[in-house]
């Protein structure tokens, strides 16, 4: 069965290694992903901050396209896109009038029946046994699993993992031989979309996350969100300046960590694209 794939804009640009590693991993696990044809941006923080109707319409077009192209399920690796698409589906399911109006705005029938999965849900649903059987090189490191905000909250909409102390990523990392640590910043915000407009705030918030990672001796941070990744990785000089110390801990997408355990080449997983060198692996 083919699953629809919604990469979103970050995965086509600054976070292309997330795209590369999701696709490489899906291939290794025999999951057939097919990109939703002619998808558009979900609108992200910008749309819901200034225009509610727009913030529902942009994701609704994506969901409507997926329906028309015959997908029953779609995978959305970016936590922000996953959140916007899920929120739209939730809100439109509560309100028939709104659903009708949005359908008219996008000029397409919209039903709201597509199941939206993040990458962790995809792996949980289809691949845990396969991953276990295909491990060739256990990922034997102490890791801090960083969920951030949008993967788990709001629970009412996403119904995914525990809000305060989520476990899904931790158990997947244990499965591939890693040791996930207990730490305090699992779901604290990295500063998200303020990376350009208020870099000072991102340095502080991401700095607090990285300080806890470093103090507790984690050897890698594992993420499933391109914004968490770019803030913790590309903003490391600003983070180091804020903390007054050089933090060397690399940040990996969960798809890269699992890919490495399955013996996929680091280059195929895009590890060379990180700013903070992944030299322990």
């Amino acid at each position, binding site marked *: 069965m083919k699953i629809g794939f919604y990469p979103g*804009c*970050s995965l*086509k*640009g*600054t*976070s*292309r290694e997330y795209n590369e590693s999701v696709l490489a991993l899906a291939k290794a696990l025999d999951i057939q992903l097919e990109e939703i044809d*002619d*998808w*558009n*941006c979900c*609108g*992200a*923080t*910008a*749309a*819901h*901050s*200034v*225009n*509610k*109707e*727009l*913030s529902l*319409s*942009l994701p609704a*077009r994506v969901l409507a396209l997926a329906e028309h192209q015959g997908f029953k399920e779609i995978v959305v690796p970016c936590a922000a896109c996953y959140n916007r698409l899920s929120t739209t589906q939730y809100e439109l399911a509560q309100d028939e009038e709104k659903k009708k109006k949005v359908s*008219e*705005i*996008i*000029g*397409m029938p919209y039903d709201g029946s597509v199941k939206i999965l993040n990458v962790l849900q995809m792996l949980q649903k289809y691949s845990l046994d396969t991953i276990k059987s295909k491990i060739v090189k256990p990922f034997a490191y102490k890791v801090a699993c960083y969920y951030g*905000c*949008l993967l788990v*909250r*709001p*629970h*009412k909409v996403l119904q995914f993992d525990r*809000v*305060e102390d989520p476990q899904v990523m931790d158990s997947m990392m244990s499965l591939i031989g890693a040791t996930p640590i207990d730490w305090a910043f699992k*779901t*604290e*915000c990295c*500063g*998200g*979309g*303020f990376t*350009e*407009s*208020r*870099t000072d*705030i991102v340095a502080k*918030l991401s700095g607090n996350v990285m300080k806890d990672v470093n103090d507790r001796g984690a050897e890698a941070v594992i993420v499933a969100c391109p914004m968490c990744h770019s803030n913790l990785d*590309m903003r490391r000089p600003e983070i180091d300046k804020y903390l007054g110390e050089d933090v060397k801990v690399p940040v990996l997408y969960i798809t890269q960590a699992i890919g490495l355990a399955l013996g996929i080449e680091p280059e195929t997983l895009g590890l*060379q*694209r*990180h*700013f903070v060198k992944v030299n322990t692996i």
Partner: protein
Amino acid sequence: MENISGSITYDLRKQTGIDVGRCYQCGKCSAGCVQAEEMDYPPNMIIHLLQYGTQANLDKVLRSKSIWLCLNCENCVGRCPMEIDIPSLMDYLRERSLNEKKQNKAANDIIAFHKSFLDSVRSTGHLYEVGLVADFKARTLHLWQDVKLVPKMLSKGKLQFFPEMVKDMHSIKGIFSKTKK
């Protein structure tokens, strides 16, 4: 009193489904808010101001820095014992603040970023990052910000030189024109 038709709190409830009167000021939202210390009014104070239902207080909120500093991390609503959807309220207040031209000057860069972002989506259907940054610099005149990042991003293959356009741009244009305020 506060739920009488035509009152400010009634109007808020009608627009957003959120009844600020349900908040009993436990302060959990502000305790967990990563942005509270940057804000002029922390989240529980925003709700408190709105609970009075006066135009003067609503104005304070619409002119505040807080509504723009909120990152919509959803921590507050996750912890609120009354499940008051503060992030959605913040969305509504931001949109209204812009429509009434009451936005706080300290939020200019944040608002400029949102506008640059949406301009990119309007013209290509996607977020085109290079275009976004150029547009943001032009709006804010922060011309030298992040210039050092560019060579490194290039060597890591993280910059896309040309925007990838949505094929059906007609439908994107339609979405923007039909939702235009």
